């Protein structure tokens, strides 16, 4: 039986901003399909930059990214990649305040060939999934921050993407709202969806199969929790080993759920 390619694989990934600010200094990382990975580290360590590159909303200055075994440069249309392969959740939910919650969820489904009715039904289904069905016709300004973040997660799932990318999804929430969002990620993890979460929050990282720690633009440590590890490494080519002794197969990206 053939193994599926990793959801993501990066090699020597760098991102340098104007002024020679090196946000990423050569990141090798592979995320197996179906795995939940938490990327943690101090502010400014490059974790959000890494997520933006994986989401193809930013462009690396060096190295490569493959998604589903295919280099991003070979994807015929990055908009299609952003629309269908990844779903992105931001720290500040970024809902459009003028349109109802359900219309916000519909946004990624525009230009996918779905009829307005099909979009509406799918949005309703997703809002029910995140327990926000009651707010479908409300404006984002009429619901709480935690509820907005759940709506943002529903929006990220609109086109049933292979991977959910979340950038500090609980960063602006109170503890009760954080707990609900964590429950949501846990449920998505349990249904086998690939998730990459950038977070500072220990309780969010606890949802992950693997916690990747970054510092100064490099991955410094991977901590496989109860689940199989993510493969990781750095531009120096040194493969790292998980604390529990299981070997990481750097650059091979063959790990799935075991």
């Amino acid at each position, binding site marked *: 039986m053939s193994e599926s390619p990793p959801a993501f694989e990066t090699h020597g990934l760098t991102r340098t901003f104007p002024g020679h600010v090196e946000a990423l200094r050569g990141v090798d990382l592979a995320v197996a399909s179906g795995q939940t990975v938490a990327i943690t580290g101090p502010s400014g360590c490059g974790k959000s930059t890494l997520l933006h590159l994986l989401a193809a909303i930013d462009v690396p200055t060096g190295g490569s990214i493959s998604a589903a075994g295919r280099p991003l440069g070979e994807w015929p249309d990055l908009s299609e990649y952003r*629309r269908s392969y990844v779903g*992105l959740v931001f720290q500040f939910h*970024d809902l459009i305040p*003028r*349109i109802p919650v359900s219309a916000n969820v519909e*946004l*990624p489904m525009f230009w996918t060939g779905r009829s*307005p009715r099909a979009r509406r039904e799918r949005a309703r289904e997703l809002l029910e999934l995140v327990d926000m069905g009651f707010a479908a016709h409300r404006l984002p300004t009429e619901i709480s921050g935690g509820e907005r973040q759940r709506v943002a997660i529903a929006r990220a799932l609109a*086109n049933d993407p292979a991977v959910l990318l979340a950038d500090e999804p609980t960063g602006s929430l109170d503890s009760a709202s954080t707990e609900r969002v964590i429950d949501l990620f846990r449920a998505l993890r349990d249904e086998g969806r690939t998730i990459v979460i950038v977070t500072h929050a220990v309780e969010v990282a606890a949802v992950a199969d693997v916690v990747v720690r970054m510092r100064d633009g490099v991955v410094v440590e991977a901590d496989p929790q109860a689940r199989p590890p993510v493969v990781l490494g750095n531009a120096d080519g040194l493969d790292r080993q998980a604390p529990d002794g299981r070997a990481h197969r750097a650059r091979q990206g063959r790990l799935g759920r075991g």
Partner: protein
Amino acid sequence: MTFFGLVVRNLWAKPVRSIGLALAVAFAVMAVVTLAVTSSGLEESAAAIISVGKADLTVVQKGAADILSSTIDKNELTSVRSTRGVANAVGVLVEIERINAANPAFIEIGIEPSDMAAFGVTLVAGRTYGATAAHEVMLGWRAAANLGLHVGSTFKANGTTNTVTGLFSTGNAFGDAGAMFPLPAIQGYNRVPGIVTLVFVKDVAGEKAAAVARRIEYRLPELTTIRTASQFGRADRTLVYLQAAVNGSTVLAILIGAVIVGNTMLLSLFERTREFGLLRAVGWTRWRTVSLLASESLILAVGGAGLGVGLSFMVATLLTHLPVLAGLLTPNFTADAFARALFTALGMTVVGALYPTIRAAVLPPIKAIQYE
């Protein structure tokens, strides 16, 4: 939600701004269209003069400031008559006189009684005036109705009191709203003996009007010929200048409107930069994101154009009722006026949207999302 619904929502989110922008477009369109329809009305009125005589072509002085200041002398009239292919040439003197407030531009035509049949004049009541009669006049049937006059009434014009000898019809509304005088009499009133304004030419059967026109222009280079209203500018420079003014004001309106539209769109772009980044992040292409902004402008432009035409109709109607302009302006709402309205509104939008659209298109998603 549909794409159109999203566009409308976005516009309605800032109602004052949207309505303000639509009004700006509307006022620009109104100015351009009002000028266009009134100048078109003037052009039509002027062009109607040449169609009174139902001629194959009209001969006028080349490059006259306006057609009524054209002067053609007796010798030239004789030359026109003797040109090969000319069956008949009727010289008329046309003057405009203010009769009263309701008739500030009353048309008076000096014509020999013997030329009336060739000119297409039909007597509908009374008799023709005498060829050299000093105080006789014939009224067009419309003019008689408008003035409440009939055969035997007196009609004051050119500083004299004239007896209405008959009523005529030319089959042309413009001509039927005027009066006809014996040619020597009206030449005398205006101190232009032997001069006519226009010569109406009927070709010999089988002759091509264009060929006859060429011959006349060759023989009499100081004269020109008009066969259609579109050739009117050959003789009437005023209308040419007026048309140039209309075109110039259209361009000016587009430029001023474009600055307003561009500023508003740019403001909208700055305010919604994060939103555009978000749309890119959820899979909208660069051009689909831009199309959202462009569609919003397009709706305002089309709405503004419609409103502008409506306002123009109102303003033009009001102008015709102003005592100083009554009877002088006849707005002519043609398809060209509506096309001009749309052209102006779209021109403003396209030119105004150019920079904001390009700016939105080249904005990287990450920059847009991180925009504060």
